[in-house]
């Protein structure tokens, strides 16, 4: 309490300095007057009386210093003083300051961007309550499982608090007569409950809604889709819509920050997986040999990953024995969820780690560069420093002043770098590399990024600020004042700057070489031979099930489509394929003969330029 009171008093004194100085001066004056009067009474002559009083009072300036130190926050006041002085010095050499700040902005900005990637893709667990306990149950490196096996895992295991299944599909959502192509998650009924997500509006569907196939006519909208297609209308709950022509009612809206369990993919709508036959036109849920479902589970508290793995192995052994035809060689693995199960996990982690290393080297090169700049500057300012030393300034105080200057520069660089990286990351987060598919890289910077950038700034500021310190601390102020900056000529033999130069060249060589290798690799993969010629080929995407066609109707409609497209002027050939080369391959129409037609069309197809 007393400490707090004193702290507040000192803080306010730091602000209102003047009046207090006046008070002290007046008090001292009064003290001396009273003591002088006393001395006069004791019989001393006036001049001597005054002299004795002053002597008795002690060193006035020293006491004033003490008084000031007691009164305000000396540390903070010194820091402010140093900062003001440093700003003045930096303003005097704007070219130097600008170069230093921009160099650092590049270095720190690059690190902030890469760290955001690392944070968004690798460090941050999946964005649900207790997300670090969520694991992907895979087969080796492949996340796909069959639905019947999923049911067995769900019901037999004792290592997980719940295991949920999901699939990514396309569908047509019909709210006003024309179907709108959307991307959906088909999920098991326990999906939201297992992830412990709460609806933003309405309710989610649950395991208790499932009563066999095609039994759970409920949809959950993602927050983004609700905003963009329903204008955030709260009356949307209970509204009847058609999903691929089948009647569903909207049960609820997912919270804004929930976008399923895949980092790169944000679905528009969540639908029950038991309705797969209605949605996709065929039911793969009964086929134990059909691996299309992805599984995530929440590990029970107290169960280790290796225990869970052993437990899953025992389930696999039972399944192999019971269903030798489909489950031969079945084995499970646990991975981190989010990157197509964990199948992209290895490459993504390696890629981001590589980038982080490069960004670190960039910053190191920047620091080496600034270190030599600052030591050159210290040499130029040597006379000033020598003068201050000669006037009685302590070396510690000068050191602090130099470091303040360096840290100010690095903070300026960090501010600029962070501003740049925010712009870049926003653009990257909004970027959809593949048109029409909700795939993006959500890496908006968060508090972690800012803290990281700030720490880097302080660290690099201290790093390059300390480089000229040895020069300053070793040198002799007498020499300095006599010879100016020549006094440091002898010091140059220390050749800190030579070492820095060599370091800089080495780092830059590494960076330039690695960028050239990366660019060359990209150019090569852009010109690689695909086995077909993609020039002038156009792709038209359609999904007939969205319009309610199924079964035997499909080939008829497709033939009519092909004929209509071939009739368009300028089209030389047309074909249909359920998978397009180089695409992600999960957009499928099904039950079609004609995959080879599609490729043939690509090989032969030319759309003449029609200007």
């Amino acid at each position, binding site marked *: 309490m*007393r*400490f707090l*009171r*004193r702290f507040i*008093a*000192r803080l306010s004194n730091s602000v209102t300095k003047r009046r207090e100085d006046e*008070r*002290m001066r*007046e*008090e*001292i004056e*009064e*003290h001396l*007057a*009273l*003591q002088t*009067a*006393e001395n006069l009474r004791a019989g001393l002559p006036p001049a001597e009386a005054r002299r004795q009083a002053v002597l*008795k*009072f*002690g*060193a*006035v300036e*020293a*006491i004033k210093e*003490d*008084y000031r*130190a*007691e*009164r305000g926050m000396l540390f903070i006041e010194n820091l402010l003083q140093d900062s003001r002085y440093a700003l003045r010095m930096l303003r005097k050499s704007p070219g130097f300051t600008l170069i230093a700040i921009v160099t650092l902005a590049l270095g720190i900005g690059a690190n902030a961007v890469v760290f955001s990637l690392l944070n968004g893709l690798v460090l941050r667990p999946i964005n649900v309550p207790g997300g670090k306990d969520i694991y992907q149950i895979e087969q080796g490196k492949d996340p796909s499982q069959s639905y019947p096996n999923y049911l067995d895992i769900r019901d037999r295991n004792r290592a997980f608090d719940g295991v949920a299944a999901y699939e990514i599909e396309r569908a047509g959502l019909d709210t006003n007569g024309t179907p709108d192509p959307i991307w959906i998650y088909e999920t098991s009924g326990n999906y939201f409950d297992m992830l412990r997500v709460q609806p933003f509006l309405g309710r989610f569907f649950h395991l208790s809604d499932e009563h066999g196939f095609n039994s759970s006519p409920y949809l959950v909208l993602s927050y983004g889709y609700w905003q963009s297609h329903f204008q955030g209308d709260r009356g949307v709950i209970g509204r009847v819509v058609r999903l691929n022509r089948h009647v569903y009612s909207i049960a609820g809206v997912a919270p804004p920050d929930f976008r399923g369990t895949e980092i790169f993919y944000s679905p528009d709508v969540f639908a029950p997986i038991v309705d797969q036959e209605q949605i996709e036109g065929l039911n793969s849920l009964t086929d134990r040999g059909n691996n299309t479902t992805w599984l995530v589970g929440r590990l029970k508290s107290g169960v280790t990953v290796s225990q869970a793995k052993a437990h899953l192995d025992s389930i696999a052994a039972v399944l192999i024995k019971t269903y030798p035809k489909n489950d031969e060689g079945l084995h499970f693995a646990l991975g981190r969820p989010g990157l197509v199960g964990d199948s992209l996990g290895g490459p993504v982690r390696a890629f981001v780690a590589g980038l982080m290393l490069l960004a670190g080297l960039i910053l190191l090169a920047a620091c080496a560069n600034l270190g030599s700049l600052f030591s050159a500057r210290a040499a130029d300012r040597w006379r000033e420093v020598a003068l201050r030393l000669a006037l009685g300034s302590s070396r510690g105080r000068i050191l602090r002043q130099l470091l303040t200057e360096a840290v100010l520069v690095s903070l300026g660089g960090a501010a600029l770098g962070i501003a740049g990286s925010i712009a870049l990351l926003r653009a990257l987060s909004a970027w959809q590399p593949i048109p029409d598919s909700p795939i993006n890289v959500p890496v908006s910077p968060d508090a972690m990024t800012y803290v990281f950038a700030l720490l880097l700034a302080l660290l690099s500021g201290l790093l390059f600020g300390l480089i000229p310190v040895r020069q300053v601390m070793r040198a002799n102020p007498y020499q300095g004042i006599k010879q100016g900056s020549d006094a440091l000529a002898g010091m140059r033999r220390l050749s800190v700057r030579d070492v820095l130069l060599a370091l800089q060249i080495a780092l830059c060589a590494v960076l330039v070489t690695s960028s050239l290798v990366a660019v060359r690799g990209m150019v090569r993969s852009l010109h690689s031979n695909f086995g077909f010629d993609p020039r002038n080929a156009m792709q038209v995407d359609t999904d007939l099930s969205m319009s309610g066609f199924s079964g035997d109707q499909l080939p008829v409609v497709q033939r009519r489509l092909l004929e209509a497209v071939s009739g368009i002027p300028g089209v030389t050939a047309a074909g249909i394929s359920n998978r397009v080369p180089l695409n992600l391959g999960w957009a499928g129409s099904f039950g079609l003969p004609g995959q080879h037609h599609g490729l043939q069309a690509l090989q032969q197809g030319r759309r003449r330029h029609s200007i």
Partner: protein
Amino acid sequence: MLLTQWRCGILLLVTQMSIGETRHMKPKRDVQQGTLALMVLKTLDVLGPLHGYGVARRIEQISGEMLSVNQGTLYPVLLRLEQEGAIASEWAPSENNRRARFYRLTRAGHKLLEAEKRDWEQAAAIITRFFEVKVEDLS
């Protein structure tokens, strides 16, 4: 808390107190300030409101050595006590009809003085017992 630190070092003070030399030695300075603070509190307790010079004179009279060299050191201590709320101050006319800053003890200062006095007496009693111990008492 600070007063506790001072108290621990108070014994050193009696033999080593030489104010001019200790200016740059932090621990000893704390000792000096702590003892001085206690003396200031007691003086104001006994004599009522006083200006800085009055406090200095009184301490000088009683303690002799302590302030004869460096009366000015009193002022940082007064300021510190005021910031802690143990004393309060205001301007008033002094005996030579000029303006002086008069200090008086606050309620918090009273309590602080009582607590410090008790602790100090306790510490002194313990030390006294130690000084009186003879070899045969320990065996």
